[in-house]
Each structure stands twice: as C-alpha cells, then as structure tokens.
C-alpha cells in the first residue's frame, strides 16, 4: 500500500482526504483550504521524545504562518483522544489529524508511512491549488524546524507575483 516511490514529490497533485481533527473531531482535509497554502506535517507519534518538540515549535510560529495565510495540519496515526491530550498539554491550537482508521492510509498515500507502523517525519507544502510545491523527509528523531517550510512559502509567494505580473 505504501508508495514505492517514497515521499510525494513537487509537481504532483496532493491526494485528497479528510480525517478527524482536534479539537472537536470534525473531519478536516486540505481541499477545505483551497486558495491558501497548506502545510502537512506528518510526525511519528504524539508524545515522542524529540529535543524541542516539532508541533510545539510550529504552534509558537503560528503568527509567522499567518503572515503567509498558510494552514498547518499535523498528522500522525494516533487517535483523536491522544491528539486532544497532546494538543492540550503543549498548547497546540492548529488541527492535529488522526490517521487512525484505516491506520496510516493518508500517510501511505503521501509516501510518508514507515514499516514500524508510524508516520514518517515528513513535511509537504501544497500550493493554493492543491499541488505539492515542496516536500522533505527528515530522520524520525530530528526535528526539521520550519526554515524549509518558510523558504517554500516565500517561493510560492514569489511565483504568484510573477504570474500576476
């Protein structure tokens, strides 16, 4: 089921999906945010020990994402209940999506599923039309930060200016 070509690459149309999301379990997916850049942040698991938690970092960077009108969605195979407790403990206000049943189906469709049953630590940036514009696979124990994401969002903004001009 996992994509044999690895993580989804720029230029491809992002597979559509909806998953239950924090805080209230409503179904969310990237198609609901057409017209805005969408950042999909796949991560192995809630509560996993990384020095400087990646999702906490993205929450603290929320004002910067807002400048780009970018939507951040966190995804792991954890259930909505785990996501809720995790979001509460770290003060995470952006949606965490539960790729829980069928387990890892969305992660697989993006080539971001690992043999150990967790999502990979992978970043995928979608342009406002839903096409992949940048993707990055990080070692599972390394927080990739956000610099690559913001570079991709800058590039998107620059491309749009060229198109408009």
């Amino acid at each position, binding site marked *: 089921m996992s994509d044999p070509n690895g993580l989804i690459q720029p230029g491809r149309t992002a597979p559509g999906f909806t998953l239950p999301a924090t805080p209230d379990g409503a179904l969310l997916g990237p198609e609901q945010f057409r017209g805005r850049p969408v950042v999909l942040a796949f991560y192995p698991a809630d509560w996993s020990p990384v*020095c400087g938690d990646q999702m906490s970092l993205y929450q*603290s*960077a929320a004002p*910067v994402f807002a400048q780009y009108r970018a939507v951040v969605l966190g995804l792991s195979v954890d259930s909505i209940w785990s996501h809720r407790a995790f979001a509460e403990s770290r003060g995470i206000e952006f949606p965490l999506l539960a790729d829980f049943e069928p387990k890892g189906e969305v992660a697989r469709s993006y080539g971001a599923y690992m043999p150990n049953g967790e999502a990979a630590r992978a970043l995928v940036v979608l342009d406002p039309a839903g096409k992949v514009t940048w993707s990055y696979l990080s070692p599972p*124990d*390394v927080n*990739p*930060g956000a610099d690559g994401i*913001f570079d991709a969002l800058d590039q998107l903004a620059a491309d749009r200016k060229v198109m408009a001009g």
Partner: protein
Amino acid sequence: MSTPLQVTARLRDPVTTDDHIRGPADAAVTIVEYGDFQCQFCGAAYPNLHELLRQRADTVRLVYRYFPIANVHPYAERAAETAEAAGVRGRFWEMHDWLYEHQDQLDPVHLSLGVEQVGLPPDELNAEVENRAHADRVRRDFVGGIRSGVNGTPTLFVNGIRHDGGYDLPDLLTAADAAANA
C-alpha cells in the same frame, strides 16, 4: 539528538550592534544563542556557556537572542520582554543571569523581585511589559531564529553554523576551538 543526515542550518540574521553581546568585539568565535528563559535545557546550558566565556575570554563572544516557546512555557515571553526592558537600560546581562539562575521563580511576583535585585524599578519595567513595549523586538529575534533553522531551545550558531552537538562544557569547548582554528 542530531544525525549526520541533517542539513546544516545557517544563521540568516547577522550579528549587529542591536544585539546583546558579551565578550570581546574582535573575538574570533561568535556564538549566537537562541534561548527561552523558562526552558530547562537552556538553564542547563547557561553555566556551561558562562564557563566557556571565562576559559576562552579572548576568543569567544556570546550573543543572546530571544526564542520564547510561549505555548509550552507560559512565563517565557514575559521574561524575555523584561530582559529587553533591562537591556534598554544597559542591564541586559544582569537580568539574563538572574532569569537563568531563578528559573523556578519566573512568575510575575518573583520576577518583580528579580528586577529589583538587578537594581531596576519594577513598576516602571512592569508597565512597559504590560504595554508590550518590547514585544516587537522579541518577535523579531524569534522570526529570525525560525528562518535560520532554530528547531528547539537552546539552539546555538557557532560562527554562523548551527551547532548540532551537546551543551556540556567539553562539547562547547570543542566546538569553539574548532571554529577558532577553522
């Protein structure tokens, strides 16, 4: 917890006279720290950085930039803005040191006592912090950090390149000496 696979991140905002700098201006090695006053790992690194500056007084200088992770550390932003308020009065490092030496006393009441201990007027500083007079400066440091690849706290850049090693004194000495001899 880094691996060789990691892309090396570089400091994008160069050090300027607006920065808080401790150590000689002509130091061969500049360490830029992105820190959060409520972060225990920053607290653990603090005495080691202090000792590094003592042992390498002629070659190393330290630059401190704010990187409060406010959703996890509720007192971090206020502590950073208080340090900046002290900074505009020429007392940044005294406040910085007090904060790292009293990480369990960052609530507003104890923080005011700290400001007093540093020799500054607590009511005046409190008012500035309440008015968010220094929020832009703290935000500017944070954004520059996140654009440079800061992925947690503390993050150090040694002569512009992210230090992905540890924060124990031997790790820091090794990194500083390597940069000095590069």
